């Protein structure tokens, strides 16, 4: 391939860097027993061989290292490859493991967005729409009630001065304010803004979500139901706080 620096400066751009989000299976290991790992991996794959064939995979070593087990990453990567999976990353590894990974040309990811911890098990995650977060400014103000079956989307903040009925859905890339009863679904930070918050003066929502982290009505604590609250995200956990 030519890397001639004297190429004409008028050449049209042939590439572009874009940010994108993918859904990739993560293999979380909790033992350093390589034989057991290989065996159980085979068992899992045999359940859905088509699904796993040549599937990309991220190896999560956080649990393993927490427990003080050490594992030879090169051997592990080999086992995974032999099983027909393609490791494309490692996270939660120690210095030695990260080094081994890079030698095998497997990228190292930070643990920053690691899995859901035990105390947030009731909270589920929707994959945020894979688009970069943009600073959009437009705030939508609505003075009429949002009725069952209506959907409202704001590319910025959403302020509603009337009630949101059960069966209605309000979404905003920014914050959501409801200065009345919230009975429907409210999704803030729908493009992945984890700083977004939901405020309402009477929480009776069917579902609340911030940046894809959601809770359904059933999971709402009785102490916050029918109260004026704010909802925000802290360490991947939805916090609902009384603001009376």
């Amino acid at each position, binding site marked *: 391939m030519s890397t001639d620096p004297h190429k004409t400066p008028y050449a049209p751009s042939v590439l572009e860097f874009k940010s994108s989000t993918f859904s990739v299976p993560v293999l979380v290991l909790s033992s350093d027993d390589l034989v057991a790992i290989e065996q159980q991996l085979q068992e899992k794959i045999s359940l859905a061989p088509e699904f796993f064939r040549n599937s990309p995979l991220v190896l999560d070593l956080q649990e393993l290292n927490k427990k003080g087990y050490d594992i030879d990453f090169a051997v592990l990567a080999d086992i995974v490859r032999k099983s027909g999976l393609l490791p494309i990353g490692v996270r939660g590894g120690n210095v030695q493991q990260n080094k081994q990974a890079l030698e095998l040309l497997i990228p190292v990811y930070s643990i920053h967005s690691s899995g859901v911890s035990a105390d947030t098990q009731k909270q589920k995650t929707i994959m945020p729409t894979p688009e970069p977060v943009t600073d959009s400014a437009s705030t939508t103000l609505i003075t009429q009630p949002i*009725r*069952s079956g*209506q959907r409202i989307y704001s590319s910025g903040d959403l302020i509603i001065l*009337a*009630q949101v*009925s059960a*069966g209605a859905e309000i979404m905003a890339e920014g914050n959501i304010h409801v200065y009345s009863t919230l009975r429907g679904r409210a999704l803030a930070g729908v493009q992945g803004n984890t700083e977004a918050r939901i405020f309402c003066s009477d929480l009776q929502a069917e579902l609340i979500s911030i940046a894809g982290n959601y809770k359904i009505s059933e999971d709402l604590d009785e102490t916050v139901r029918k109260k004026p609250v704010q909802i925000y995200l802290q360490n991947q956990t939805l916090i609902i706080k009384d603001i009376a």
Partner: protein
Amino acid sequence: MARIIVVTSGKGGVGKTTTSAAIAMGLAKKGHKTAVIDFDVGLRNLDLIMGCERRVVYDFVNVINGEASLNQALIRDKNCKQLYILPASQTRDKDALSQEGVGKILDALKKDFKYIVCDSPAGIEKGAHLAMYFADDAFVVTNPEVSSVRDSDRMLGILASKSRRAERNEEPIKEYLLLSRYSPDRVKLGEMLSVDDVQEILSLHLLGVIPESKSVLNASNSGIPVILDEKSDAGQAYADIVARYLGEDRPHRFIDDKKGFFGKFFGSK
């Protein structure tokens, strides 16, 4: 200026046709020239409730298709000269209605009539959509139970977003709540939602409460709008509703137990 009133609900069997017949009669009795249109093409009922089923020659669809003139299809009520009925077709379905055709008929009626009452079919599909599309006012008929309230809420959303007024960014349709088949005894027992419960969910201006009443069934069977049965509770409730709609200030009745003294009125919120 003529006003188009749609009587709607989303849910079926809540009393739309009974209400349409009663309020159309009530408005006409007050001296306003009124037309009532049955939009329930295929499930024609209004003519039965109005007691004019034997005089139907042409119907709504005939007029839309240009097979009959509006004057040929309009049936003048026996009881009130100011009231005309435009029956639905029983042999067609709702696809026979077109937005353009309905619009033309309503425009023609507006020249001649003060009030045009549109009796909407149940559901939120084409028939119901066309019945509400041109409306100025909406009477949302709701029974005091959760599924009816939910459906009414859905219908209110459609009124607010899919009507001609909404599409043209005009002043929105005026919405009124009519709570029908209300039984204070059952509310007390917790078997029914109360007026307050329904008001809290729908947050809508309450035009009136119509009590559950045998007189409604009797009136329907005999083809006389219940509002003409002035002794009945339901008839009086509809008379109140018409008066309130026309701007009279009447206290709400039939919300409290019947055993309560007649003069003990309860105001709405």
